[in-house]
């Protein structure tokens, strides 16, 4: 009768070592786990990218077999999207959302623990397919049938691991939605929430809508191969192109799942270092929602060459072009936030500025890709590779890095080494352009993507790109070093860390104690 405790909200790190991390339900622990996992996956996926770039340094096959090359391009994408970027954003959400809305923890701490711990076995399984007979999937991350059905013994394991990743994402998304809708401190209405919280709420909504579609699509691939169905098999009356429709119906929202939280981070960082409130908060929220909505009606722009009715081509072209409007609103709002501010250039701000510039370049090439007649020429060339890498690397990944530098002092209680941070920034920004900018030219000069070897006229830009790849990859080791140094020690961080940051997270001590805000602070 006497000592029964209300256990749900109560699992701090009682245990030590491995057991603590396995059983923790604390949002900060789980956020850390997600971020560390994401960093490891970033390095693994990056190594795969370097194998690809090494093979492409010059024409002729020097390093790998074409089949292994295809495995590398496929696995690089799967690892980076599902292993590096998504867990990074979920990790940031875990750390920051409870702090930002004034909640003691995530709404469902135990589910939070599960959604992380599904990830490592899923990736062990996915990476182990590299050693199975027939190798890892080699049909591209888009898994188009019939090619993907030619995968060797690894096929069912790939599907199963993708199911696990999807389940993890859904659990994470549900937790985030419930936390944001239920656990906001009194006085924090929806329109007072920080933009990072807003963008994550919309992202979670997209995840809930898109993930079952992926799960269904890959299950139908599985039944096509093993249970004699013909969803996508021409021989049995199915249509392989329908898989592409279904896949991109998931895939395009997924693309925005990867960028919206980065928009949120940039919208936190820029006002802090411009010492000025975010310009156009309401229009930012509306623009984010509009982008999310449009993401469900543009999917077929990934497949303009498959043979579609003219009306379809026109519809998807115009809907795609209109995404430029809300995206433009965001960029103009960031510019207006900087306008007449009092700007300083700490590392998070540098990454945020590079984000605005380089993401905009990715947006421009995206607009060009929307134009069907031109897209037919750009499609499946390095122009597309350059486009989505501009959006995902100096876009999404720079967003994550900006967020990490911005909140790291809050997490560890130490300031990071600003000199190291600046070096990391400049090297990353220079090399990411050396890496990806020449790929625009390669694409325009008609080099197809996903080829292990190329005609001789593409040599020069490929060499430059490979040099950039190694420069960029090695610069990230500086980031790892900076992180280790900052966790171990360094100048003590103050509660506010920066001059005039906005938001509740800056009112708790640094490092933030466990179970902040067990009841509501006043907003």
């Amino acid at each position: 009768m006497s000592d029964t405790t209300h256990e749900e909200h109560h699992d701090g790190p009682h245990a030590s070592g491995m057991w603590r991390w396995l059983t923790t339900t604390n949002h900060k622990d789980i956020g850390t786990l997600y971020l560390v996992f994401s960093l490891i996956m970033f390095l693994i996926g990056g190594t795969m990218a370097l194998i690809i770039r090494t093979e492409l340094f010059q024409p002729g096959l020097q390093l790998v077999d074409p089949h292994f090359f295809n495995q590398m391009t496929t696995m690089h994408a799967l690892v980076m999207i599902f292993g590096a970027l998504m867990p990074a954003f979920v990790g940031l959400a875990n750390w920051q959302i409870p702090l930002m809305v004034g909640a003691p923890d995530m709404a469902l701490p135990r589910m939070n623990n599960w959604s992380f711990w599904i990830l490592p076995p899923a990736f062990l399984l996915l990476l182990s397919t590299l050693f199975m007979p027939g190798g890892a999937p080699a049909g591209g991350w888009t898994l188009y049938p019939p090619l993907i059905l030619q995968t060797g013994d690894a096929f069912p394991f790939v599907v199963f691991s993708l199911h696990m990743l999807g389940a993890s994402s859904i659990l994470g998304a549900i937790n985030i939605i419930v936390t944001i809708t239920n656990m906001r401190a009194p006085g924090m209405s929806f329109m007072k929430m920080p933009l990072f919280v807003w963008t994550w709420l919309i992202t979670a909504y997209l995840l809930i809508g898109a993930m079952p579609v992926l799960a269904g699509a890959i299950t139908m691939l599985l039944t096509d191969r093993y249970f004699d169905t013909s969803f996508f098999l021409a021989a049995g009356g199915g249509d392989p192109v329908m898989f592409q429709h279904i896949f991109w119906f998931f895939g395009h929202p997924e693309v925005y799942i990867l960028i919206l939280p980065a928009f949120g981070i940039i919208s936190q960082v820029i006002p802090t270092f411009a010492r000025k409130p975010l310009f156009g908060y309401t229009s930012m929220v509306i623009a984010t929602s509009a982008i999310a909505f449009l993401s469900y009606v543009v999917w077929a722009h990934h497949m303009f060459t498959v043979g579609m009715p003219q009306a379809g081509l026109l519809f998807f072209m115009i809907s795609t072009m209109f995404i430029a409007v809300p995206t433009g609103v965001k960029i103009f709002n960031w510019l207006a936030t900087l306008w007449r501010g009092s700007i300083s250039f700490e590392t998070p701000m540098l990454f945020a500025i590079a984000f605005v510039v380089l993401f905009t370049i990715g947006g421009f090439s995206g607009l060009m890709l929307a134009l069907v007649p031109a897209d037919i020429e750009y499609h499946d060339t390095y122009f597309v590779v350059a486009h989505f890498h501009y959006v995902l690397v100096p876009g999404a990944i720079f967003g994550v890095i900006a967020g990490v530098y911005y909140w790291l002092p809050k997490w560890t209680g130490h300031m990071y080494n600003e000199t190291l941070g600046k070096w990391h920034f400049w090297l990353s920004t220079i090399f990411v352009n050396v890496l990806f900018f020449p790929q625009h030219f390669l694409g325009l000069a008609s080099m197809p993507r996903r080829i292990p070897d190329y005609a001789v006229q593409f040599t020069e830009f490929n060499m430059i790109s490979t040099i950039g790849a190694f420069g960029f990859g090695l610069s990230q080791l500086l980031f790892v070093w900076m992180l280790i140094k900052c966790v171990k020690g360094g100048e003590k961080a103050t509660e506010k860390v920066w001059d005039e940051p906005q938001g509740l997270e800056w009112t708790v001590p640094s490092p933030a104690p466990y179970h902040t805000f067990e009841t509501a602070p006043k907003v």
Partner: protein
Amino acid sequence: MNCSKAQGRWLFLGIAAVALAMAGPAAADWALDFPASATELGNKVRGLHHMALIICVVMGIIVFGALGYSLVKFRKSQGAQAAKFSHSTKAEIIWTVIPVLILVGLAIPTARVLIEMEDTQAADLRIKVTGYQWKWRYEYLDHGISFFSNIDDASNAASIRGAGLELHEHYLRDVDKPMVVPVGKKVKLQLTSNDVIHAWWVPEFYVKRDAVPGTINETWFKAEKPGSYRGQCAELCGRGHGFMPIVVEVLAQDEFDAWVAGLTAPAEPEPEPEAEAEAAISQASTAAAGGASAR
């Protein structure tokens, strides 16, 4: 600052594009722009690309210019004091409406080209193109000609890992038997595939269309000048995806007729597809075990 650098790159790209457009067919190395078009429609597509590029460069100059100005002018280290404003309905409406107008202006000419592109009526010549792992088959439906087109032996030998052979000028972009078409004639392609999805692409024709099993896709081109035009498969199709070139020989009408006569007049039997397929399989025999069909 990085913004001015990025701006510089865009200027460079824009200037390079304009210079190249004026220079006509330039050397392939260091090419910065779309190849010169061999078709009238291709010229229109190329024009659209340049229009979109110029719009983007102008927008880039405005956006990055404003950004660069802010970063220089409103620095805290220069004693800038932060203003307090946080919204302006007027400004927000302006930068919503202006992009909409630009987009509409871009969409209209694009839609025109698109409609022209999709018009496969009134073709002079029909060729059925079938993708195989990893070669093409061309069937001239009006002439009863049919043959496979494989990568040339020199490229094939040089592409083996560690072969160390010298790479010739058209490495990976040469075939044993090219597609042959007459100049100035509307050629309609009917594309399909025997196994996985491929895509038939000749950059200078500005034609790219997927070859999907179980489906016939149609597209067309009308080459303006005789010559050899090179492309390759553009949809990942397995181990040999990078080794599936396309060459189209555009001949004068009388030369084309002679080519047709040479193939049809003597009772030279059409090569058996099976035999060809076997040859192709042995060519790809170095494929890793998993590359083989699992079905």
